[in-house]
């Protein structure tokens, strides 16, 4: 097949404008949530050590986190600025999208002894809200399982410094744990697949 083009033909088009598309529908849950993946990974499965996975989080936990970022109740870097760009319906759309995504297991190096100790601590202290080894959560409790250890440690520091506010039920348990026990719990959650 021979291809030959005419400059006149190209030139003709250069001055023309193609008409715009007909009226578009408002953003869908996919349209809103795909944009988050640049930082949080495709479908919310994170490969970045300080970035949480959003995949399989409950709708309530996503909406709760976004509202707290927006109000400033939860401390953040970019999340507060971004959350201000959305309304409650859009938060709900994100929650709907990410709650439908498959759990994102990660492979990371954890201290086996700490993880084992953490498993017992989880069972004794946390399992009423952090269900199924942290793979699920009651109400707006987030999925902890397989989150990156570095991310979990950053959040624990925010809690311990008082910058991030803990729900009362959690504070009652967490504040009674030693520094070592807290760390063991994080190793446990990071290890769950």
């Amino acid at each position: 097949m021979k291809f030959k083009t005419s400059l006149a033909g190209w030139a003709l088009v250069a001055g023309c404008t193609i008409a715009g598309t007909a009226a578009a529908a408002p953003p869908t849950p996919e349209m809103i949530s795909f944009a988050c993946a640049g930082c949080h990974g495709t479908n919310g499965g994170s490969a970045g050590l300080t970035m949480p996975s959003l995949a399989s989080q409950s709708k309530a936990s996503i909406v709760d986190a976004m509202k707290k970022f927006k109000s400033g109740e939860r401390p953040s870097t970019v999340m507060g600025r971004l959350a201000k760009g959305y309304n409650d319906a859009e938060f709900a759309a994100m929650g709907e999208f990410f709650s439908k995504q498959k759990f994102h297991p990660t492979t990371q190096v954890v201290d086996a002894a700490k993880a084992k100790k953490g498993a017992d601590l989880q069972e004794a202290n946390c399992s009423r809200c952090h269900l199924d080894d942290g793979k699920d959560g009651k109400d707006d409790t987030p999925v902890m399982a397989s989150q990156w250890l570095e991310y979990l440690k950053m959040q624990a520091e925010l809690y311990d410094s008082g910058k991030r506010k803990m729900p009362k039920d959690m504070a009652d348990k967490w504040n009674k744990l030693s520094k070592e026990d807290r760390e063991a719990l994080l190793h446990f959650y990071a290890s769950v697949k």
Partner: protein
Amino acid sequence: MTLDRRSFIKVLGGASGLALAGCATQGGSGAAAPAPAIGKTQEILPKGSARRVVVVGGGYGGAIAAKYVRMLDKSIEVVMVERNRQFISCPFSNFYIAGITKDMNSITIGYDKLAANHGVKMVYAEVTLIDPAAKKVITTEGTLAYDRLIVSPGIDFRSEEIEGYDAKAQEAFPHAWKAGHQSTLLRNQLQAMKDGGTVIISMPLTPYRCPPGPYERSCLIAGYLKKHKPKSKLILLDANPDVVSKKPLFTKAWTTYYKDNFQYVGGKKVTQVNVAGKSVSIEGIEDFKGDVFNVIPPQRAADIAVKSGLVGEDKRWCPVDVVSFESRRHKDVHVIGDAAIAGAMPKSGYSANSQAKVCAINVVNLMNGKPTVDISGINVCYSAVSEHESVSIAAVYTVKDGAIIAVPNSGGISPADFSLTKAEHAYGESWLRNILTEMST
């Protein structure tokens, strides 16, 4: 097929249902375009019964568009054409240039997993021309037919606006504004420079790829000099009258960390380079002498977009529909990323990623006869102000009155007290890991 003027009009007009009357008189504008390069003419991957999207370019925009079209509709065949087997990211290449990272491994990805995981067909070739009338692209390996085309070609330089900045001068005074060989050139020159030398960075007027990029580079190179060559200095010549991105944050970094070895000068547009004399000229009225030069030239959409008539009246950037990113020049051709005019969205890697998804959703909807969906986009961009500290800008985008705008009262830059720079540095690294993983798996 021979494409003459008449059949071109017929095909385009027939497909789009548009009357082209009135356009013919503007025909002169295309005559200045370079003659189309001719690639191989045999068809590669002949199109079967499946509908096909061809994606041109496997960068921050293209790789994501290819992946998301497949994620959204497996019945659509996706072929991605990319000239390189590996992609090297511009974001984070400043760490390599400034000697902080040893190599480019952490910013280099391949496409094997993307292809295997999503069934994206890879063609490693250079696209030499797009033929929107015949709905095919001509590449160095042969032609490819498409139903819809997504072009994410990135930028090329308006080198002709800097006298003497030819291919040879670009090796001597590297731009390092496309990562890879050029980054290595600049890195090596910085390392070879004797202590006491002067480094000069020059940057163009907006719009250009990565608005904060030159400022980040200035911080990291100033940091390198401070640590390794303390008697040396760095001058940033900005063609813009003032800092155009994250101004309070870069100003703070310059005045607190680099006040002894760095100088910012606004309103200095480099118009000539003198490689032998080791100087650059500002509009013939002022010369700056130095030892190492990083000349970032003014930019436009990549050559393929210009050659294929996708750029607008400015001859530089590609006008697109703000919902589907369909070209306003050619039907069934979509343009995303740095090459596109996307309203308030900056020319950044994250913008390209976000636009690719908006485009993929709407390309699939259009191919399936469904209504298009308005954009909801994001940009998040981290800039290092030192080896261990970063700052950010973030925004959410929507469409209003036919234009892409940032959602009012949202977004913005990091706090100016640098209270979050360590955390943001860590988040920046995760940004890189996640966005490159998105593109490569």
